C-alpha cells in the first residue's frame, strides 16, 4: 500500500528530500509511520514534530492507500 510522504522545513533538510512515495503495510497508523521515519532519518527534536494526514493534524488514524502524510516541524510563520 503506497502513501505519499512530504517533509518540510528542517525535517526536509535533515531527510535530504521534500517528498517520497513509501510502501507501508496495511493497517499501519500514522504514529507508527512517524516513529519509523524519525528513526530512518534521525530527525532531531522528534517530540516537536506534528503529522498531518491529508492536511489534517492527526496521528491516531490508520493509513489508507494514497494518503498524503506530512512531517511538520514547529510552525514559524509571521
Amino acid at each position, binding site marked *: 500500500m503506497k502513501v505519499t510522504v512530504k517533509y518540510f522545513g528542517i525535517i526536509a*533538510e535533515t531527510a535530504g528530500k521534500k517528498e517520497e512515495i513509501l510502501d507501508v503495510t496495511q493497517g499501519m497508523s500514522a504514529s507508527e509511520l512517524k516513529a519509523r521515519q524519525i528513526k530512518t532519518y534521525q530527525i532531531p527534536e522528534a517530540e516537536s514534530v506534528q503529522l*498531518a494526514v491529508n492536511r489534517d493534524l492527526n496521528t491516531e488514524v490508520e493509513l489508507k492507500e494514497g494518503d498524503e502524510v*506530512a512531517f*511538520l516541524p514547529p510552525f*514559524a*510563520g*509571521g
Partner: protein
Amino acid sequence: MDKKKPKKVFVQGAVPPEKIAQSIANHQSKTNIGAHSIFLGQIRADEVNGKTVSAIDYSAYEEMAEDVFHEIREAAFSEFDITCAHIYHSLGKVKTGELCLFVFTSSAHRKIAIDACNYFVEEIKAKVPIYGKEIFGDETHQWKKNS
C-alpha cells in the same frame, strides 16, 4: 460580502508598501467602516553568534496552509463583527527591512477591528504550517523559531 470566498494569502517575496496603500484605498467606498487595524511583520537583522540575519526564505505546506487560513477567517468572522479581513504572507526570500506579513481588519468600531487583527496574527503564528530559513550574511542558515 466577500467573507466566504477563499482568498489567496501567499505572495512571492516581500509585501510591497504600495500593496498596503492599495488595500486601504479599496476600502474608502465602504462607508460603514469606522476603523482599520493593520499588523505588519518585518524581517529583523537579528544577530546570532556574531552573524547577522540578511533574509528569511519562507516555505510552507501550501495546500494545508491555505485551508488553515480559510478556517481562521471563518472563525474570525463568526467571533468578531468585522466588515472585512485580508491576510498576505510571503513565500520565498524576504530581505531584512522588508515585510513578510500583512494583516488588515476593518469594522465599524475600533475595538473590534483591533481585537480581530490580534486574533489573526496569533492564529497565523500558532496554526499555519509555514517555515522560515534565516539566512546569514555568510550564506549559512538556521531555522526560525517563533517565540
